[in-house]
């Protein structure tokens, strides 16, 4: 019986792969024996195996040859050899998308699925459903319904799973089988239970009430299948999340009870579900954490991995909850599975004390080369978090990171390291020089353009302010000589910054610039020429405006304005101030991520929120001619959360007007509101110019109405004002079910909370990367200084955050971070006042009993200075 395969295969030695030298054409040639009578099951089986093997290896079959082989194969249904028949089903499934007219086998399959041979029935159903489309499904619907409730578990399972696959294609037909699935769910067989539950949930998942009922039923009846339990836990936790059900809900009790299930799979699923619940308290976590702790010492690697991975997640939100497991985690550091060891260490880094950091770092470095990129990123993220927690450890970390930077690794990994080093540099001024030196070394041999340009930008920003800036020039100029266009251009910009800041370096930078002007790339040449000319002027103001602090306008806005300008040519030169400003990006708190898939979505340049509003407002005829939108505020809630009508307001500031956008939602399903207007009564000299009503506001469909307010001309310093707001509308009662409104309605009104306009609404945040230069650029023409005592404030941090939020200006030079244990601090704020005038503010803060603040304001226009000082006082 050894000689089962062809001679050719045998010749190549018995240890080799009998399928190695298969050729598609030869196999298809062989397939002709399918047509011989009587059928030789053994040989045919072997040929079918070869065909499936070839398909599995990715061999491409043309439609004609596939169809030919498929039709030949259909003859094999005449044989009663079990394995051969089963292989026919497999061939049908494999070829369903390649061959034409596969539906030819429908009747043979239908016969098998309803036949007496139980061995054939399940697989036949699965093959049949693979080739069936929506129209044909109707024809076999009767058989499917019978199969779902069949007594033979394999038949029932096959029918349920196939139905699940077909839900995507023909939801409406499969939906009719809900009763049969319901019946199958009470089967004794554990797999049938599981599959029935899966199908039922899939059919009902959009109907929350039905899902709740289903859960109630199954959590009480007690299923046998561990898989079904896992599924139930997932459904329950999803439902808990959607309904924001409290943790006293029976669903939570169910999940918790699963922690005592006899199957580890279910216990783990339940623990993981609890850990993933948002706003879970430490007390609720405790039982989950203790089962995970038990798993940590399991002999099964997969279980240890699962446990430590989940504990790692707990450690992010509740480090204290995990400290109980520290001993078990310590044992896992030496685990032979490096993934487990890495997760254990990173978890310990999150929960451990400062003293254990050195030891843990040493342990990681002993095997960092053995772990995959994904876990290296996890390690880097843990280090990054650690640096924020223990800033004093930065030198250990920096060494470790620079070693990792030298190792091989993919882009994601390198980027994580570079980001981490940059954040360390920003947090710890004393680590700046070593950090920059490591980064310089890295770009000497860096294949990732994005990282190289990012580092060059950082060098340009930080390098000139270090004690010996000249040593960075060599690294930067090397890039001009060796790299691609994008990197060369970035290097030129960085060079210019050195020239502008350091007078003694200027002559050498000019020489280097001259060389760059001969570059083969347009962009590099343009930049070099531009910077060359600016630098030669040797004027601080020019340097500040064109080299340090680039354009602060929004790019899509600029594009639109320029397009508009070219459409309507005029004598006037294009005015940069009409372009809406880019909203300063709020640096998001980096959320920590455990091993996650690197997202494959390409990042799209989304228009900013403000650009969207600009577009929306421009579409309303009443608001044309207001000029460009200057600033849009965050939404302000004007009602309590659970009221009949929900109203929130967004304040849009223009150069001489303000537009208030009221987003209203009607939460009463028996009312239709029409002609909705929010009437505003200003307290100051403001004047409401016009109301734009929302024509109709049906149940739960948000609508917007607007009010236009003219800002007072005579007193430009009157920037703050309080408006009392009342919503007025016409109510028409309607049928809650049909939404059909009555013919007549009545007027009504609803009092909203007061709306305040503050100085922050008139100032747009602008980030000046080099505050000193900008300060000089504006000059002291309109400088004013005043001293205030902030008696109610107790700490410097509080003072800083109050000032920043009150004025709505952008903190520069990271001056919003107050170093610990200091009694004085200088805060730099930058912004643009309505009308396009730069405003810069320097506040010296001193902590005594309260906080004393000396404010110096500079601007290109006097009003802005007055406004700010007046509002602070």
């Amino acid at each position, binding site marked *: 019986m050894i000689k089962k395969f062809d001679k050719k295969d045998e010749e190549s030695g*018995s240890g080799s792969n009998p399928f190695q030298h298969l050729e598609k054409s030869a196999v298809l040639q062989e397939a002709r024996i399918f047509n011989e009578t009587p059928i030789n099951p053994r040989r045919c089986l072997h040929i079918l195996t070869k065909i499936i093997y070839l398909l599995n290896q990715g061999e491409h079959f043309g439609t004609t040859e596939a169809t030919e082989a498929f039709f030949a194969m259909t003859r094999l249904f005449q044989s009663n050899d079990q394995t051969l028949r*089963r292989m026919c089903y497999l061939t049908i499934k494999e070829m369903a998308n390649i061959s034409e007219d596969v539906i030819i086998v429908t009747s043979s399959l239908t016969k098998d699925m309803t036949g007496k041979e139980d061995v054939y029935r399940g697989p036949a159903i699965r093959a049949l459903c693979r080739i069936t489309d929506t129209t044909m499904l109707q024809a076999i619907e009767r058989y499917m319904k019978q199969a779902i409730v069949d007594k033979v578990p394999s038949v029932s399972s096959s029918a349920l799973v196939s139905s699940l696959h077909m839900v995507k294609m023909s939801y409406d037909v499969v939906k009719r089988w809900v009763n049969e699935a319901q019946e199958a769910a009470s089967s004794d067989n554990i797999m049938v239970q599981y599959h029935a539950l899966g199908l039922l949930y899939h059919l009902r998942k959009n109907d929350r009430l039905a899902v709740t009922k289903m859960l109630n039923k199954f959590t009480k009846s007690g299923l046998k299948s561990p898989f079904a339990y896992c599924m139930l836990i997932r459904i329950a936790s999803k439902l808990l999340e959607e309904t924001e059900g409290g943790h006293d809900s029976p669903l939570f009790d169910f999940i918790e009870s699963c922690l005592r299930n006899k199957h580890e799979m279910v216990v783990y699923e339940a623990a993981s579900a609890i850990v993933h619940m948002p706003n879970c308290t430490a007390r609720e976590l405790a039982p989950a954490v203790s089962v995970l702790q038990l798993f940590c010492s399991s002999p099964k690697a997969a279980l240890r991995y699962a446990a430590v991975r989940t504990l790692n997640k707990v450690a992010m939100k509740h480090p204290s909850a995990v400290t109980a497991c520290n001993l078990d985690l310590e044992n896992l550091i030496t685990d032979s599975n490096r993934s487990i060891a890495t997760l254990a260490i990173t978890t310990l880094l999150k929960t451990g004390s400062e003293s254990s950091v050195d030891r843990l770092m040493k342990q990681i470095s002993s095997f960092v080369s053995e772990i995959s990129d994904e876990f290296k990123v996890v390690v880097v993220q843990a280090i990054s978090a650690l640096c924020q927690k223990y800033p004093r450890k930065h030198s250990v970390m920096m060494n470790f990171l620079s070693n990792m930077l030298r190792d091989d690794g993919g882009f994601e990994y390198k980027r994580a390291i570079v980001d981490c080093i940059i954040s360390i540099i920003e947090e710890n001024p004393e680590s700046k020089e070593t950090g920059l030196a490591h980064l310089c070394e890295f770009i000497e041999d860096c294949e990732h353009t994005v990282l190289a340009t990012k580092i060059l930008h950082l060098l340009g920003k930080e390098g000139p302010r270090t004690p010996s800036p000249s040593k960075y020039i060599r690294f930067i100029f090397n890039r001009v000589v060796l790299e691609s266009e994008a990197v060369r251009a970035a290097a030129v910009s960085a060079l210019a910054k050195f020239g502008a800041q350091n007078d003694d370096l200027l002559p050498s930078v000019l020489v280097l610039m001259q060389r760059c002007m001969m570059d083969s790339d347009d962009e590099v040449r343009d930049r070099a020429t531009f910077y060359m000319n600016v630098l030669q002027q040797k004027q601080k103001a020019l340097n500040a405006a064109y080299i340090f602090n680039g354009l602060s306008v929004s790019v899509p806005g600029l594009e639109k304005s320029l397009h508009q300008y070219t459409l309507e040519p005029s004598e006037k030169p294009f005015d940069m101030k009409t372009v809406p400003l880019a909203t300063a990006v709020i640096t998001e708190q980096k959320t920590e991520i455990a091993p996650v898939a690197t997202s494959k979505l390409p990042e799209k340049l989304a228009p900013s929120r403000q650009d969207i509003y600009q577009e929306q407002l421009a579409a309303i005829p009443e608001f044309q001619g207001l000029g460009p939108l200057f600033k849009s505020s965050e939404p302000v809630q004007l009602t309590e959360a659970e009221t009949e009508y929900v109203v929130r307001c967004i304040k849009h500031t223009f150069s001489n007007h303000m537009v208030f956008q009221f987003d209203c939602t009607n939460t009463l399903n028996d009312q239709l509101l029409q002609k909705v207007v929010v009437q505003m009564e200003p307290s100051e000299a403001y004047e409401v110019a016009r109301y734009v009503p929302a024509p109709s506001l049906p149940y739960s469909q948000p609508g917007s109405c607007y009010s236009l307010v003219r800002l007072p001309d005579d007193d430009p310093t009157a920037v703050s004002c309080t408006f009392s707001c009342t919503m007025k509308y016409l109510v028409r009662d309607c049928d809650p079910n049909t939404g059909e409104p009555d013919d007549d309605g009545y007027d009504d009104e609803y009092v909203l909370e007061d709306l305040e306009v503050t100085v922050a609404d008139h100032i747009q945040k602008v980030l000046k990367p080099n505050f000193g230069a900008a300060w000089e650029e504006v000059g002291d023409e309109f400088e004013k200084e005043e001293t205030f005592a902030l008696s109610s404030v107790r700490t410097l941090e509080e003072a800083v955050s109050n000032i920043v939020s009150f004025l709505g200006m952008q903190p520069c030079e990271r001056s919003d971070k107050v170093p610990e244990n200091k009694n004085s601090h200088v805060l730099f704020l930058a912004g643009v006042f309505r009308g396009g005038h730069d405003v810069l503010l320097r506040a010296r803060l001193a902590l005594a009993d309260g906080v004393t603040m000396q404010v110096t304001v500079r601007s290109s226009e006097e009003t802005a200075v007055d406004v700010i000082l007046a509002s602070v006082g």
Partner: protein
Amino acid sequence: MDSAALEPSLYTVKAIFILDNDGNRLLAKYYDTGLYPSMKEQRSFEKNVFNKTHKADNEIAFLEGMTIVYKSSIDIFFYVVGSAQENELMLMAVLNCLFDSLSQILRKNVERRCLLDNMDGVFLVVDEIIDGGVILESDPQQVVEKVNYRAGSEQAFGFVLLDYITGNMEGQADENPLSEQSVAQVLQSAKEQIKWSILK
């Protein structure tokens, strides 16, 4: 994406594959069409997984954003792939079922040659365990019963040889009678087989 709990679904397994000890594919099924749609991507994924896993028998790994459980036997490697949030123990249940079922079908000879000689049985076993990414059966006993497959070449080689020498041709009626030349091959095979059983 990480904080979001898993969408309740029966689609547990993203892919399943068996590789030989050079990392070549013996069998591979990808159930999530969005994951590695082209053959080239699949191959490079398999290569990456193999390189990272073949040295140490660690049972579980996390690669390219996917949880992978694996097991090796002599000169073949079995892999089951699921999403990052998937319950690792479910994937383990699939892997164990696959391994135990094949072990029964191949009569404990879970090695490359024997697997290839019974490739039809292997295809059927995989088909009974996973259907389009859904776990169809997790009990190896059930799988073996459903497949009802008899290994072809797994009769001990010594006995085959003996059968041949004694002229017992039973059960080989539909085969070509062994020729003079193939005796050498039989011996060769026997040698290989003995070598493997010593290495085991």
